[in-house]
């Protein structure tokens, strides 16, 4: 994440119109890196890593061994990738992360916003993000915010969950399922939570 933040600062400097020479001196990096960031943006996920992350998105119950076997990557690579993208423990938003989020929202850069939140698994449980036209992949954050402000989201959430299932975005589906648990607790439908959990265990 430290590296990412540095890349973000470089990206911002490029946007401000600073010359590559100055950026190179200020951040102690080569001009090549600057051109790469200028061309590809600061949020670049390597193709190989993307394969692992996309496989995990479809199969969130799979283990490191399974992923490495099915994708034919080494176990250590899979483990490192999952760790890098905070799959084991979601990243709690710190000041640096909030700065990046704020920047992306201000720029209406939804493509990078959804990639940043989902690929880097930022845990935005208690953060309030002010955005409109939320991309589908991070709509669960908007729904969670709505629920916290007392809006009944049951219908919207059900539709969202079934769409996620259809699109095989199973990891996001599980994240959104946590919000459904909160809805069910509020509605005092505890048995349904127990049923869902026991069905998940069977699968």
């Amino acid at each position, binding site marked *: 994440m430290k590296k990412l933040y540095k890349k973000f600062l470089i990206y911002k400097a490029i946007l401000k119109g600073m010359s590559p020479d100055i950026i190179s001196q200020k951040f102690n990096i080569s001009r090549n890196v600057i051109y790469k960031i200028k061309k590809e943006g600061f949020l670049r996920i390597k193709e190989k890593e993307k394969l692992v992350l996309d496989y995990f998105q479809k199969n969130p119950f799979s283990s490191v061994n399974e992923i490495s076997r099915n994708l034919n990557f080494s176990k250590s690579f899979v483990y490192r990738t999952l760790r890098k993208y905070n799959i*084991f*423990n979601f990243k*709690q938003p710190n000041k640096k992360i909030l700065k990046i989020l704020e920047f992306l929202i201000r720029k209406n850069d939804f493509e990078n916003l959804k990639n940043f939140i989902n690929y880097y698994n930022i*845990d935005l449980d208690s953060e309030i993000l002010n955005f409109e036209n939320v991309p589908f992949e991070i709509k669960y954050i908007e729904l969670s915010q709505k629920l916290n402000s007392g809006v009944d989201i049951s219908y919207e959430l059900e539709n969202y969950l079934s769409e996620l299932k259809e699109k095989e975005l199973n990891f996001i589906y*599980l994240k959104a399922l946590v919000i459904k*648990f909160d809805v*069910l*607790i509020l509605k005092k439908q505890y048995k349904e939570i*127990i049923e869902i*959990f026991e069905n998940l265990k069977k699968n």
Partner: protein
Amino acid sequence: MICLSLKAKFYNSYLNALSLEEEFEKGFTILRKIKRIYKKLTKKEKLNMERFISVFYYNYGNYKKAYDFSKNHPLLRILCLYQMGEYLKIINSDYNILGFEKFLYIYAISLSFLLIGESVKSIETFIKVYNIEDIKFEDIIELYYVFMTIYYKFIGDDNYIGFFKKLI
């Protein structure tokens, strides 16, 4: 599941549902599973999980354990102390709690005063509820009724029902 954060969130909701459904045996099985992942969680996740464990023990009736797990959740701590009969500790506590939880906090303090025989202080404390912003009397009327019931029983006046009717 290798995603510990998600696993923890699922366990929290499941444990909560089990305790509210009073399925404590299943709950204890989940607690054993929670123990296995607890150390690997982030600080925030640990704090959140402790709240659910505390609520589970509270609903189960083990207030001592519930108290142990409520270190970072003042209201839960107060409710546990109340159940354990530690009224003086509640009265002497000084937590900064806001909103509806503040009402419950004041409610616990005034009941504590009542139960140690300080009925005047009890009423004086209860009146502070009206100063809490965002609290509507309709929201708290049930608890108010309970309070007045205990109060009038305590001072030996059985006409509390009439008093309550006048209020609504």
